[in-house]
């Protein structure tokens, strides 16, 4: 069974600074996808970024990038130039050929002005 672990329940960052959210996962599969989702106070969950396990290059979406370490089963999210609108709960998620989508426990990020 796959598991996703987020060890940081809460984090805080100053506006314009950089923050890294951690995620580790466990699987015996070789091909899979990893995702970061954001849930702002409005509650609507939205996709931030995704990474295919077969790609060595780390995914980047504007200010958001990942550090994917397949051997270590680690998938961290880096947010650069943090903005007040980045304040949200961030969830790491895993998906494989079964199409089941498994989430971690989340990290609550507060961006301070």
């Amino acid at each position: 069974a796959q598991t996703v672990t987020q060890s940081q329940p809460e984090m805080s960052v100053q506006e314009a600074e950089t923050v890294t959210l951690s995620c580790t996962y466990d699987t015996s599969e070789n091909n899979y996808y990893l995702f970061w989702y954001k849930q702002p106070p409005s509650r609507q969950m939205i996709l931030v970024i995704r990474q295919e396990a077969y790609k060595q290059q780390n995914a980047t979406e504007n200010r958001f990038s990942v550090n994917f370490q397949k051997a270590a089963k680690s998938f961290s999210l880096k947010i650069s130039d943090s903005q007040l609108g980045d304040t949200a709960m961030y969830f790491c998620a895993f998906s494989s050929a079964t199409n089941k989508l498994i989430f971690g426990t989340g990290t609550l990020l507060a961006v301070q002005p």
Partner: protein
Amino acid sequence: DVKVTQSSRYLVKRTGEKVFLECVQDMDHENMFWYRQDPGLGLRLIYFSYDVKMKEKGDIPEGYSVSREKKERFSLILESASTNQTSMYLCASRGGRMNTEAFFGQGTRLTVV
């Protein structure tokens, strides 16, 4: 825009009642999911469905059942509601490949009294 619509945003039910949570998606997605979100526990998968009339148990199926008679609709049923089922319930849908983005409903805050 993809829409995933949950029938109620807030619901209050009595212990022992049978409760139906409805979810409808308009993107012809194969996969639909029901999650429960609790503070500190993240999103836990209750059930997911990969096709009409097909379902698979998630991590916490006890006390719940599901129904998917039409592709666009996925219902979560609490056979006999209990106070420990007070929670936020999130529905999601996604396409048939493991790399596809999941789209979420707004959530239903269920309180069982």
